């Protein structure tokens, strides 16, 4: 590709001339390895699934025909997934936008506490968190029992079951997508637009409908896209609330009995996810609306009317309790005697035995150790892949860096179920990517899935640090006599290290709690990671032990959140240039 010097900013031309000398055997080898890994473990398995789905011996598209037949199970699952996802976008959107506007526009008592608590759902562990919702609001749960007693009716009247249960979980775990994007967008604007509208004669209502809400459209759309994609990928909530007609559950339950059917469902789900990935990326490039003026920060309004004060306080109190309850339930369960919750709204007997057991019992350390090992191994490989591809896509001007970018982000968009299924299909036979071995049924499938699923997190955070890093810094190092490697090691790496660290922490936590892909891939009891141990204990009725493992996950997430804050503070120096 011939560069167009006239269209490039001056900085790029300078970089390019340095870059041409970088075209040596070393960089070609790096690119070759990158292509090998991306094809072998990321893109290739998806293609294998596609070939598998059209190669069932009954005509190329036989497995896809049922999607068009309204009465078929596949069509029902597709509709079920879409239906739940649309509803989740609405409920999570309403909650997230409302909270973001409330907490970022007005000031009232305890606002700061509330603002910290609003992101608590992020700390909910994947499987145990959903179980906690079930135990609180589901069949036989705490609230249905309490309400049933109070109104003297059957607890079942108030139990959230099926789709309503899934929606509750989705709402409570996905509203942060809306909350974070809307809050960030509100931080970018200040009061002057509102004042301008008012000075031009707009009433309060007109200011809202014509200025404030339209301005929030980009973050709301961004939140909606993410929520939709996550809802389509959601597996645990439908599983626990027994909603079987969704695509993820259909893939998981048919993976052995009707693999061809499962592969077709996986392909359709993958296509939907990839479409959303492309839409999200297109949308990200449009950016958010910004207004800058001196002073900057938005002034919060103190709420003055006493009716508003009371309702805000009550509303904040109730929502806070709702937000904290699932985590509180996990902690409470951790100290309950296994099997002591037969009737009544809460467990009846408490003990320290569970805690003692998981920290002393020989078998109980196993799952924690397995999860740490698998996650650490996956993250170590993901650092190499993520950092290399981030550098290649942001700094090297080569043909096809857009393809590397999409390929890297692909597993992030794919549901865990689909990633796992792809790996099953791809590694059922020996190949050069598995060094001639059949990987299915071995220990290596789970860390491999973590590596594939969570590399994008490291890639993304590294790439965004690199984008913010002025390329002239690297050029300055080169001009002072440093080699490419020397400049990378002594200038680039230290400056993006906080970005890498952020991605690493996220990836490690995600791997530590991963359930959706793990349940499809693990085979041996002795290799079972934490999420599977929790699942086993839950199935065996040992809720106390499961909750104890859940507490370990919550504590780890909190530790990582605190660590991330530290890293971000230190990383601030990287962004001053």
């Amino acid at each position, binding site marked *: 590709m011939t560069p167009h010097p006239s269209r490039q900013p001056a900085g790029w031309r300078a970089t390019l001339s340095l870059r041409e000398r970088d075209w040596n055997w070393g960089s070609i080898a790096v690119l070759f390895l990158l292509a090998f890994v991306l094809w072998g473990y990321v893109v290739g398995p998806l293609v294998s699934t596609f070939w598998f789905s059209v190669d069932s011996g009954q005509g190329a598209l036989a497995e896809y025909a049922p999607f068009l037949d309204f009465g078929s199970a596949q069509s029902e699952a597709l509709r079920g997934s879409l239906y739940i996802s649309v509803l989740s976008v609405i409920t999570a959107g309403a909650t997230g936008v409302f909270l973001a506007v409330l907490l970022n526009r007005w000031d009232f008592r305890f606002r700061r506490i509330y603002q910290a608590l609003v992101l608590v759902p992020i700390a909910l562990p994947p499987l145990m968190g959903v179980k906690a919702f079930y135990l609180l609001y589901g069949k036989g749960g705490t609230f249905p029992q309490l309400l049933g007693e109070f109104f003297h009716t059957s607890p079942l009247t108030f139990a959230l079951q099926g789709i309503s249960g899934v929606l509750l979980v989705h709402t409570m775990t996905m509203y942060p997508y809306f909350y974070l994007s809307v809050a960030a967008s509100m931080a970018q604007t*200040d009061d*002057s*637009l509102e*004042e*301008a*509208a*008012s*000075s*031009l*004669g*707009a*009433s309060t209502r*007109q200011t809202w409908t*014509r*200025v404030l809400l*339209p*301005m929030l*459209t980009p973050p709301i759309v961004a939140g909606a896209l993410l929520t939709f994609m996550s809802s389509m990928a959601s597996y645990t909530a439908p599983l626990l609330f027994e909603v079987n007609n969704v695509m993820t559950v259909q893939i998981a339950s048919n993976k052995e009995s009707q693999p061809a059917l499962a592969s077709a469902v996986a392909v359709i789900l993958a296509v939907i996810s990839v479409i959303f990935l492309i839409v999200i990326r297109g949308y990200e490039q449009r950016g958010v*609306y*910004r*207004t*800058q*003026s*001196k002073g900057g920060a938005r002034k919060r309004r103190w709420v003055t009317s006493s009716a508003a004060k009371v309702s805000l306080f009550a509303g904040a109190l109730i929502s806070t309790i709702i937000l904290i309850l699932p985590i509180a339930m996990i902690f409470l369960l951790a100290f309950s005697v296994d099997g002591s919750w037969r009737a009544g709204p809460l467990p009846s007997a408490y003990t320290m035995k569970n805690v003692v057991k998981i920290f002393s019992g020989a078998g109980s350390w196993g799952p924690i150790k397995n999860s740490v090992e698998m996650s650490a191994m996956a993250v170590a490989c993901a650092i190499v892949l993520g950092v290399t591809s981030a550098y290649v896509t942001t700094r090297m001007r080569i043909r096809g860096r857009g393809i590397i970018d999409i390929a890297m982000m692909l597993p992030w968009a794919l549901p865990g179920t689909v990633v796992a299924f792809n790996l099953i299909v791809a590694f059922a036979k020996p190949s050069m990517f598995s060094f001639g071995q059949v990987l299915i049924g071995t220990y290596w499938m789970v860390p491999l899935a973590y590596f594939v699923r969570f590399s994008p997190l490291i890639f993304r955070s590294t790439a965004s640090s690199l984008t913010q890093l002025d390329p002239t810094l690297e050029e300055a190092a080169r001009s002072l006599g440093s080699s490419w490697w020397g400049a990378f090691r002594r200038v680039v790496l230290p400056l993006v290290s906080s970005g890498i660290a952020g991605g690493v922490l996220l990836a490690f936590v995600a791997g530590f709690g991963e359930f959706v892909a793990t349940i499809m891939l693990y085979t041996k009891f002795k290799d079972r990671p934490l999420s599977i141990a929790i699942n086993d204990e839950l199935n065996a009725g040992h809720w106390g032990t499961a909750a104890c493992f859940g507490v370990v996950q919550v504590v780890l997430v909190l530790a990582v959140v605190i660590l991330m804050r530290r890293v971000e503070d230190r990383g601030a120096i990287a962004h001053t240039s």
Partner: protein
Amino acid sequence: MNVLRLEELAKSFQRAGTVVDAVNLQVEDGEFFTLLGPSGCGKSTILRMIAGLEEPDSGRIFFEERDVTFDPPNKRGIGMVFQNYALFPHLSVAQNVAFGLEVRKASTPEIRKRTDAALRQVQLDSLGAARVDQLSGGQQQRVALARALVIRPKLLLLDEPLSNLDAKLRGETRAVLRAVHNSSGVTTIYVTHDQEEALGMSDRIAVLNAGKVHQVATPREIYERPATKFVADFIGRNNVIEAAVENVSENSAVIRFANGAKLKVHPQQRAVGVELKPLSRVGVCIRAESLRFTDENGICTGVLSDVEYSGSGYSCLVKTDLGDLKMEVPGSIQLPSRELTIRLDVIESAIHLVGVS
């Protein structure tokens, strides 16, 4: 008839303390009125109270003798241009301009007609469909102006509208602002910290410091006859030298500087409230351009310490026995060598006396 009257207006903030301190002002119909002062003097707060964006702690605001002190901004019929322009980023240029007409529920053809006319007035008629972030700073500024003018406000409020523009654009936009004011005749309140802008554009100026009005007068009077030492320091390149009054007669007063030099002035060459009686202390304002080199006695001696070439002449700093003095020298004059001791004299008729405190 006055369009705007402020009566004992006061405002304090929790952190900043008293920002506006019992301000009284009157603005006449069609006037270009400027609030001038250093940052933090309260000028923007006064403007925001006029707009209804802040509520005063005490005092009253009257529009055409109607009390609007606690009316919301959207009921005041004002047009305001914000420092950062505050253009709505989700609307096109024309939609931004039409906003005020739409919320007033004007008819579609009228909105069209008036929006087009307003864009023409600020020379942006070809950019109606553009997105606001595609415009340059100067163009955004003019959209903000068109948006404020299209609603035919009784009062146009401009909050440091030129401070985000570069020097050349500032000059051009000043011309646009003046042309718009002349053609529309709208009463305009202009906030700035730039004395050059204020002197060049205003009919009258109110000079503010620390929430207090120091002087309200025409630009020429402010420049030539500052009311206080603050105004003298803030406007132009003034030297304010403390001196003592020696003797006073009906037609003249003799002033004695610390170095013993004496100067004769007319008693009218003083600000209101300055007492002229023997032994009282006064501040002598000597503008930089009214100092000149002399071979005779003059008022002081010194050496040239710093020279800046400004195109039309030189801006000099002279270290003298009366302290460091600023001096403007026309380009036609040969500057003395820096080693030489030089004598400075002053044009006596350009002297102005202010109080010292």
